[in-house]
């Protein structure tokens, strides 16, 4: 039977519409699942509202009508670096493997064996995914528009070029990766392409470094080079850059670049579709792999590395002869185990790359706020940590993994001791990282004292510990299966558990003290009480948990 591309596309479009309709119907029957889906976009929406609010409150602030060259060059340089990095890494990897992430398990199981032409399926999926990604990307673009408009003059009408650039670049990258892979496997020219990509990358870096010689101001020279004649003549990169930075430049609209990028995209997509008649093997292997990784992460099985090693056939060498000294008995066995695993995977029990990152971040913030006041630094920490504390501690909590392993239930000993032992290593690491990330600010910041930063550190540590223990309450209240309610409720539980401290801190700042440091201390002290209460209740809470899966 002859394939009819139009009919195939209609079928695929019909399936998509059916899925959309079913999702809509399901959201009426299961509103919590719908809220869970909405939560994914809640954060960008909140950011947009926040930045919009900032824009409105700062409306009297006069911005110059034209952005300075330094501002435009900085944005342009960042865009050029990002595009070059993304394209060159994708091309380099594409020579050896094609790892499509666009297909789902149901695509592999039902659409691949169907009579729908692989070419039609490929083109449809690439376009569909690029459209979806631009919908999510829109939030980012709007957010950056509002944020950027606080310091830059932005032409709202030209935002359309940014959206089109993101959409076309998404298709170009996907098509290019597939095209390169097809060329390398069919014509056995992978090694030549790899040499070309590597050679071009080395040439770019060498040219960039060479251009910096003798510069008085390295930053200005670097941004000027990245926006200079050479980089502005690299096809695709320069066109995309011109479109992305167009809202902040005063020049004419980048219509030519848009046209060139569109023609290139169509050409690339045409050739990719032309070659797309034999990709099912790679696509199904890759889809199966990503599915396993997703399941592993979702169920916190901790076997992601094993799955990755199975696929590549390369085993990561792990030190076996690791010892943790000290006498550990009963619940202490969990401390020994955590310490041993930490030493094996990271080389040390308590320090890791995150400690180095925390130290570097603290030093950087201190340097940036060299002359800033404590209030400004505390505000920055409060805002950024507030956003992080909603997700990180829950993800880092070792309790979820231990509950899955069931030994926490089966081994003898008081639940409280076992829970504290399970948390001990992570809790100590958190304390060290928070101290490194806060106290180090004082190295450069002249107006901030170590004692003041210590109050920030206490607040951060107390928040993380509280959320760690909140996992216990969450596990007790929530079923082990996730029917859409879990993500939603964990925020509510966190909010309830943290609320006494937040309310006390707000009241203290209104009625008792104007000192930010004192407010942080009030917040931490109330959380210490909450932590003690949760620890005292932990035996009872644990006895109420049921392990369904």
């Amino acid at each position, binding site marked *: 039977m002859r394939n009819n591309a139009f009919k195939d596309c209609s079928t695929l479009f019909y399936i998509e519409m059916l899925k959309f309709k079913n999702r809509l119907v399901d959201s009426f029957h299961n509103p919590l699942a719908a809220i869970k889906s909405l939560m994914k976009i809640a954060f960008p929406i909140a950011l947009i509202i926040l930045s919009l609010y900032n824009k409105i409150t700062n409306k009297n602030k006069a911005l110059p009508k034209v952005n300075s060259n330094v501002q435009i060059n900085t944005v342009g340089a960042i865009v050029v670096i990002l595009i070059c990095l993304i394209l060159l890494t994708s091309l380099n990897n594409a020579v050896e493997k094609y790892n499509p992430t666009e297909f789902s398990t149901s695509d592999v199981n039902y659409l691949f064996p169907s009579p729908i032409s692989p070419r039609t399926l490929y083109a449809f999926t690439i376009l569909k995914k690029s459209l979806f990604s631009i919908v999510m990307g829109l939030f980012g673009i709007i957010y950056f528009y509002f944020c950027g408009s606080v310091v830059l003059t932005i032409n709202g009408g030209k935002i359309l070029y940014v959206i089109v650039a993101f959409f076309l670049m998404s298709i170009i990258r996907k098509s290019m990766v597939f095209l390169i892979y097809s060329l390398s496997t069919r014509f056995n020219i992978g090694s030549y392409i790899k040499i070309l990509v590597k050679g071009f990358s080395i040439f770019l870096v060498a040219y960039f470094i060479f251009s910096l010689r003798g510069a008085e101001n390295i930053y200005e020279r670097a941004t000027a080079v990245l926006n200079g004649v050479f980089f502005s003549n690299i096809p695709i990169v320069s066109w995309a850059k011109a479109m992305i930075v167009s809202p902040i430049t005063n020049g004419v609209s980048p219509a030519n670049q848009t046209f060139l990028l569109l023609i290139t995209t169509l050409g690339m997509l045409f050739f990719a579709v032309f070659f797309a008649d034999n990709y099912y093997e790679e696509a199904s292997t890759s889809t199966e792999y990503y599915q396993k990784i997703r399941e592993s992460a979702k169920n916190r*099985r901790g076997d992601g590395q094993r799955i990755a090693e199975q696929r590549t056939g390369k085993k990561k060498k*792990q030190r076996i002869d690791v010892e943790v000294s000290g006498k550990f008995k*009963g619940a202490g066995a*969990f401390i020994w185990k955590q310490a041993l695993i930490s030493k094996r*995977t990271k080389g040390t029990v308590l320090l890791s790359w995150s400690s180095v990152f925390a130290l570097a971040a603290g030093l950087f913030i201190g340097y940036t706020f060299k002359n800033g006041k404590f209030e400004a630094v505390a505000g920055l920490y409060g805002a950024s940590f507030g956003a992080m504390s909603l997700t990180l501690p829950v993800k880092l909590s070792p309790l979820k993994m231990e509950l*899955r392993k069931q030994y926490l239930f*089966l081994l*003898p000993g008081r639940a409280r001791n076992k829970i504290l032992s399970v948390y001990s290593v992570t809790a100590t690491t958190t304390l060290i990282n928070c101290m490194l990330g806060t106290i180090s600010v004082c190295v450069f910041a002249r107006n901030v004292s170590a004692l003041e930063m210590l109050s920030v550190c206490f607040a951060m540590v107390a928040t993380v510990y509280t959320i760690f223990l909140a996992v216990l309450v969450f596990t007790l209240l929530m079923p082990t299966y996730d029917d859409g309610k879990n993500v939603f409720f964990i925020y509510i539980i966190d909010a309830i558990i943290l609320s006494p401290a937040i309310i006390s801190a707000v009241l203290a700042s209104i009625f008792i003290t104007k000192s930010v440091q004192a407010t942080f201390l009030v917040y931490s002290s109330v959380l210490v009480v909450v932590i003690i209460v949760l620890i005292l209740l932990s035996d009872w809470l644990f006895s109420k948990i049921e*392990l369904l899966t």
Partner: protein
Amino acid sequence: MEAKVLEIINLSKTFKKNAAVEGVSFGLKKGEIVGLTGPNGAGKTTTIKCILGLLRKTKGEVLVDGFDSTLEKSKYKLAYIPETPDIYPMLTVWEHLKFMAMAYYIEDWERDAEEILKRFDLTDKKNELGKNLSKGMRQKVSICCALIHKPEVFLVDEPLVGLDPKAIRELKDGFKKLRDEGKSLLISTHMLDSAEGLCDRVIVLKKGKLIAEGTIEELRAKVHGSENSSLEDLFLEVTQDEE
């Protein structure tokens, strides 16, 4: 009458309004293997989890050597081998045993551990990380971990699912060895052909209720089956009767 090491009396477990297990009573004698069978959703895993205290029982009693199963001393007598051998990927086989020994306050465990590994042909895998082991191997490690504190009763949930024939044979031999040492095993399974040569007695659950119990011969007599009736035939007969 021989004393029972594990006794389940009128056990019930309800999820919201659905009864997963209803008034189930049975016991395990020392040195016997009992198969807990039943169709999907019969309540096999729920029963085992209630015995272990992983799920709270709604009604009834679970006694280990005459004591409530949730008591600390009962934990020393019980061992659980779950369906999915979820061992720690970044601990070696030997470190798993060390972890268990620490948790159970066992001194001088090394000789016993060597013995256990030898018995399950894991000596050469002693320094292998959990993430590098096959499912069959992980299942064996799970059993070795359960053995280190010398429990009396083993509760094993669907141990044969996903194993290749060689691993099934090795595992069954391992269970028989445990029985010969006087340990009692309650094995939940719906792989009846594998259970047939292994279990001394069989308990059949359906919709949370115990519908048949006894040796293969006793079940045969109950349903008037022929001498050649397999456990599968008897199972189908018993569960059909209850429709």
